[in-house]
């Protein structure tokens, strides 16, 4: 079991990443809180050392995505997330961010993940494929489709 200093450091370092992954998968605050806590609980009990900080970060991303998927798979929950509920999570943001995230949240879940991992975390398609356990071509396809939709929605003037 990891000590308090270690888990506090992890919360500071990876809290935002976990929170963002929750935002693109989950529809409400309660679920976000559940997953956020569950991920760090897993970390608390995960005794094996990480090879590097990159390795640790990838672990957090994978565990968070899996936890979100498990929650969404639960038979008690609907598989589709109403847009208005998703939007509620970003309602407090400034206009320009809300518009972008609103567009991202309108994408299918698999594209949302890829957009976040590529645009924000800076992973390449092969890295994302490895991280999510998916074929790299699937990732390329997801990325291309997501780009297309976002450009339509946000206007492609900056894209290049």
């Amino acid at each position, binding site marked *: 079991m990891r000590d308090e200093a270690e888990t506090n450091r992890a*919360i500071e370092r990876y*809290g935002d990443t976990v929170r963002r992954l929750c935002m693109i998968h989950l529809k409400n605050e309660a679920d976000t*809180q559940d997953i*956020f806590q569950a991920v760090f609980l897993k970390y608390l009990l995960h005794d094996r050392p990480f090879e590097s900080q990159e390795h640790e970060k990838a672990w957090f991303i994978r565990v968070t995505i899996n936890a979100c998927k498990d929650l969404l798979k639960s038979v008690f929950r609907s598989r589709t997330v109403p847009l208005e509920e998703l939007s509620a999570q970003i309602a407090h943001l*400034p206009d320009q961010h809300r518009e*972008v995230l609103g567009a*991202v949240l309108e994408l299918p879940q698999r594209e949302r993940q890829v957009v976040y991992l590529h645009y924000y975390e800076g992973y390449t398609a092969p890295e994302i494929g490895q991280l999510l356990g998916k074929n790299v071509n699937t990732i390329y396809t997801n990325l291309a489709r997501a780009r297309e939709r976002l450009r339509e929605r946000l206007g492609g003037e900056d894209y290049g």
Partner: protein
Amino acid sequence: MDERIRDAFASIHAEEELKESTRAVLEQARTRRRRPARALAAAVACLVLLVVGIGGYQFYFTPTSVLSIDINPSLELGVNRFDKVVSVQSYNEDGQILADTLELKYLDYRDALEELLASPDIADRLAQGALLSITVAGENETQCGRLLAGAEACTAGQENVHCRHGDSEKLEQAHHAGLSLGKYEAFLELQALDPTVTTDDVAGLTMRQIRDWIASLERGGTTVGESQTGHGHHYGWHE
């Protein structure tokens, strides 16, 4: 667009509240994880104590031998492996009264015997020529031998006291018949001479009466015809 997306995501942060509640949950989990080990240790300790307690209780409180004391009050003293009296069982009303008046439990069997012999009830009966039979029976021959020797030493000055070795296998039959072992063995002797005698016939008799009955039968005082009138004997002993 790349930059806009990056900036938008960058504006999302884990709220302080969320981090705080998570830290609290982790702290709880840490203490909860520690507790089962302690709880388990405590449970194991309790179990060990319980087993030792029950084992010790049984070890101490299980009679390994019995001393059947019969005069007319019939008592059976259960003696544990440490030669202490751990149970007192009476087999008739007189025995019950005697058991109630004397505190024999947890005494060394010799002290218990001495107290019994010194009790006014028994002392009076012995003075009047009553017979006291002490029958020792148990699974452990060594202990029985020791108890018998001890009982004989205690009663050395009493001529109407007979100490004998009983058959532990008959103990259960005796209890089934509602008799103490000493009386039951005397009954068996009597029954060998007169098959019509029942346990009910001897239940109310003193040891002296049973012994006298046996003696009279041994003298040839019975015939087939007489033996069929068991009640005749019975009433005879009350006169």
